């Protein structure tokens, strides 16, 4: 099997996604959406649903396309390229959780709704910002056929729009997952968070002794599968974002003059821009290597491939965002300049699901110890 494979079906998906995001998410619309309560215009979301994107990894028996998560990569990448906000990533993650860990009843309840366009979300991280998904403080106690959940979760994306939120909590001393329906949340359970990437809609979810039927406890608790999905989709967003910010830099370097020369002719700007290009090429290659491993079911190499993609991409995108601001000079210091949008996106991506140092630390035993 080839190191990197990309099917005709994936190629078609990519062409659609590239085209869609370019048209639906020009930078003025990204800026306008920042002022809106939702991360995406409902009409645009409906178009994404019509394209089948919310059901892309939902098995066919539940009304989805039944494709691999690798097929969601070109979509997340194209959205990252155009800084498009939307519940796509959180919905796809929740879908993965339900597929890998939910029992038949929960799958039947939620997957058809998701495929039909109801957003979903995940509530994993807590106040201490720990990236280890199984080290959590929230907990639920079992009383007969009822769960009593006490939880404070952070960075829950697009929570008010989600039909279902999959929440992690300790149950009997083990990290488990619970699917909560939107209408089960008490008023005031969700509070909007201020996060660095203004295209996001991030919420704190807080409940105290919330009673839930035990049937909402997911059968499995495959946190590794959820992390894998998150790393793949985040790496895709970063790869797209890197490409986007590189375009912003090149546009400025080829149109702005200083001392009568296009500033792109100065090596102090040109050479780091080349470094950013090469870091993008690396990022995209790690990304599609990881996607290929996932599609091929190559479990041996998948974890390392994903952590490499996240580590390399996090550093590269943050560097590119930082340099993009710097290279724009005085204009770069203004909110009006698009560089800051990408820098903020890069910082978001870097600090969700583990930064470069975190993943390098986990890569060491995978790569160095036999």
């Amino acid at each position, binding site marked *: 099997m080839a190191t990197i494979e990309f099917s005709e079906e994936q190629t078609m998906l990519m062409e659609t996604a590239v085209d869609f995001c370019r048209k639906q998410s020009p930078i003025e619309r990204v800026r306008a959406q920042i002022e809106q309560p939702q991360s995406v215009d409902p009409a645009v979301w409906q178009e994404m649903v019509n394209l089948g994107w919310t059901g892309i990894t939902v098995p066919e028996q539940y009304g989805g396309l039944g494709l691999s998560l690798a097929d969601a990569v070109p979509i997340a990448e194209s959205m990252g390229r155009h800084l498009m906000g939307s519940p796509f990533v959180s919905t796809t993650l929740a879908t993965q959780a339900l597929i890998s860990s939910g029992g038949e009843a929960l799958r039947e309840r939620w997957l058809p709704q998701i495929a039909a366009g109801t957003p979903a979300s995940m509530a994993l991280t807590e106040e201490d910002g720990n990236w*280890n998904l199984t080290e959590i403080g929230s907990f639920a106690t079992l009383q007969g056929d009822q769960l009593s959940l006490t939880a404070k979760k952070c960075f829950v994306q697009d929570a008010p729009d989600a039909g279902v939120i999959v929440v992690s909590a300790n149950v009997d001393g083990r990290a488990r997952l619970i699917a909560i329906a939107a209408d089960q949340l008490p008023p005031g359970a969700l509070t909007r968070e201020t996060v660095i990437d203004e295209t996001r809609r991030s919420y704190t979810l807080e409940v105290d002794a919330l009673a839930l039927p035990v049937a909402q406890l997911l059968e499995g608790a495959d946190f590794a599968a959820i992390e894998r999905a998150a790393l793949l989709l985040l790496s895709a967003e970063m790869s797209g974002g890197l490409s986007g910010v590189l375009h912003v830099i090149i546009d400025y370097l080829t149109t702005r003059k200083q001392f009568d020369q296009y500033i792109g002719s100065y090596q102090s700007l040109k050479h780091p821009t080349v470094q950013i290009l090469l870091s993008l090429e690396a990022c995209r290659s790690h990304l599609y290597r990881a996607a290929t491993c996932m599609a091929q079911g190559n479990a041996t190499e998948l974890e390392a491939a994903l952590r490499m993609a996240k580590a390399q991409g996090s550093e590269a995108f943050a560097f590119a965002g930082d340099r993009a601001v710097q290279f724009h*000079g005085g204009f770069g210091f203004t909110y009006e300049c698009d560089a800051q949008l990408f820098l903020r996106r890069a910082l978001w991506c870097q600090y969700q699901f583990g930064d470069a140092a975190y993943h390098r630390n986990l890569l060491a035993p995978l790569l160095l110890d036999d």
Partner: protein
Amino acid sequence: MSVTQAEITEFEEQADRWFAENKPANPGFILPETFMEVGTDQQFEFLRNWQQKVYENGYVGMSWPKEFGGLGMDQVFQDIATKAMAKHRVPFLPNTIGLNWAGPLILAMGSQEEKSRYIKGILSAEDIWCQGFSEPDHGSDLGSAQCKAVKDGDEYVINGSKIWTSLGSYAKYMILIARTSTDGPNKYAGLSFFLAPMQTEGIEPRPIKKLTGEYGFCQTFFNDARIPASCMIGGEGEGWKVAMATLMFERGAAGGQAGGLAMMDLSIDDVVELARRAKRNGKPAIEDPRVREELVDLITEARGNSHMAARDKVPALATDWPTAISMSGKLRSSELKRRMCQFALSLQGANGARYVSSDAVDGGLWQRSYLNAFSGTIGGGTSQIQHNIIGERVLGLPKG
């Protein structure tokens, strides 16, 4: 004036006590770190009140003449008071341009009448000052200023615009460089210097939204704005000379500043302290070997910078390139600050992605500081331009 050691010791204790007792409580919103970052009325009023209180209690303008509102004391007392402010990490005094640029200039070159009119308001923060040197597209090259001042009777008519005007919306006066002539022997010869009243028809400061999402700078537009000819300080065409003198005051090289804390700057000690509190994966960040190595590296760099300043005072230890240290100060400190703040985010785990809000570590101070740090690496000549300048003027490398 001769000052005894006993007086010094007594005043040190007094100042230390006063700032300990009067340090303002946390206002419940995040404060700016410098006068260039005042973004809300709330922040401005808080800081203006603080300066007023400091002034009323005699801890700023201590060495300025009594007749204009100062205390006429020896400079040593002001230095002690300023140190006490830094030690207790109280807020900075926001009228920076007045205290460190305009005030010393007026005291040195102004008339009796000008001193009476301006000085006290500078100290009490009643009259806020701003600075009008930079222009759009000309960066920090003063000589290229295009903003025009044309004499018409006993007025000058100003047209053009100035950029990066801090506190522009709050200022009563601006120290303004404008071009009164275009046919001098060089581009510096046609400049003049004004103490311009901002409440003038035709002067409009428009706030610029920064990449932080906050305000703090204006672009100030002049549209047939008429100011009295008497606002000029120094003669017509002497603006460059006056500006250079002002910059000397700003750098403290000539003394004469009113004193007082000018910024609440983050230091590497703050980052170390953050590393003790902030958590990565449930453990204090400072326990992570990689974090420790990076902190050691940053401390080494910061100490290197401070040792450079000390070494620069020993002529025998000036290297083959004796201007290297003084010419590189801004480049070194601004780039270090940017990297330091950037690194500080990595100490916070997933919370690195938060922004200014009560949920964020230190209220989002580090995220905001990182974005604000670009003002240092961009303003006053970008780091790229600084490299050119040092390469060419210090090392003698050929121009590009």
